[in-house]
């Protein structure tokens, strides 16, 4: 079973909830926020092994190329230009779709590979801890996410999503059986959470909500959930103590109050179905 944790707005506590629940539930932790993966800071996995993420890009055989321009015309990403003397390849624009090879009548197109990111996996207190890391300066996170999720560890996994509702998130939740939305009780938190709700509903993925930075006098999110028949799974209290623990990469469950709150959430996870 794959439980996806998403948020809409960034910085609401997706990673905090993901890492603490992973350890409590014994689920493997998969960091899919490949642009800014932070889960390892808290779980500190050991025996980390890695592999590169590589994608294809075309190489044109000058001896065979007839400069017919078909490849440049076929490339809808404008990664190819045919001049009077050669075909120029702009590999960062290439999506590795293979269209250029399909149209080349001279068999001049072959593919080489370049690195766009990395997958790393280790162990932390009995669970597998895995992440994808997109290289700085690369545009596309999706190839990293797809490779990361194509071979998931056995058993139950928590997928820590990127923020927002972009293609990176869409590609992550394609692997989700259930989902948790982590939000904060602010106008921004609510606004962006609604986008996440719409995304999950459009994919028929059952989900519940966790309110982070909760304080008793603010029921903004609780009221919204009640009105929209959304299952509230739990709350994580706001305190400066929690913010300080987070800042040093400590697990919140090391603090007694938070241990209780996360245990309550862990017990109710089964209600998301």
């Amino acid at each position, binding site marked *: 079973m794959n439980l996806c944790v998403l948020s809409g707005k960034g910085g609401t506590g997706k990673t905090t909830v993901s890492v603490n629940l992973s350890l409590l539930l014994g689920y493997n932790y998969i960091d899919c926020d490949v642009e800014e993966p932070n889960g390892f800071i808290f779980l500190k996995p050991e025996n980390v092994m890695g592999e590169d993420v590589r994608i294809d890009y075309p190489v044109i055989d000058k001896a065979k190329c007839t400069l017919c321009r078909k490849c440049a015309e076929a490339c809808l990403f*404008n990664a190819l*230009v045919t001049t009077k003397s050669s075909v*120029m390849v702009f590999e960062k*624009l290439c*999506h590795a779709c293979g269209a250029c090879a399909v149209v080349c009548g001279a068999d001049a197109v072959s593919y080489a590979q370049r690195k766009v990111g990395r997958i790393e996996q280790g162990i932390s207190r009995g669970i597998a801890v895995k992440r994808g890391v997109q290289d700085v300066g690369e545009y596309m*996170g999706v190839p990293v996410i797809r490779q990361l999720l194509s071979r998931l560890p056995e058993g139950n996994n928590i997928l820590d999503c990127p923020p927002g509702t972009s*293609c990176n998130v869409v590609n992550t939740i394609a692997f989700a059986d259930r989902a948790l939305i982590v939000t904060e009780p602010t106008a921004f938190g609510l606004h962006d959470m609604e986008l996440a709700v719409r995304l999950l509903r459009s994919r028929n993925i059952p989900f519940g909500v966790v309110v982070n930075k909760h304080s008793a006098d603010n029921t903004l999110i609780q009221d919204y959930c009640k009105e929209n028949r959304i299952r509230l799974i739990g709350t994580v209290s706001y305190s400066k103590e929690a913010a300080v623990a987070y800042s040093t990469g400590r697990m919140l469950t090391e603090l007694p109050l938070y241990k209780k709150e996360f245990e309550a959430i862990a017990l109710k996870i089964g209600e998301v179905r």
Partner: protein
Amino acid sequence: MKIGISSTGNTMESALDPRFGRCAYFVIHDTDAGRNEFIENAARSASGGAGIAAAQQMIDSDVGAVITGNMGPNAFDVMKNAGIKVYRCADADIETALKLYSDQKLALIDSAGPAHAGMGQGGH
């Protein structure tokens, strides 16, 4: 020789468009025949690589020089590779830009402007 000019419209009175990849039209001026042709910039709405696609249109139009405001590094690489000279022109209409060119008052661009490389990158 033919000259390509990035333009905001399809008349000789139109203002030069300082953007190369995403300009509205290209004026192709034939200095020998004294003729002007207007082509729509098909790259304008490209998801990504508009400069590269616009550069391909310049090559296909067989121009020897381009007059524009700014050009990103990818398009500039193509121009260099294809042996097309690039001239910079500030606020002017097309007629004036051509006059400035024939009076040799335009400066050659010898390095690319700020990187817009891959801007857009539709798909992600």
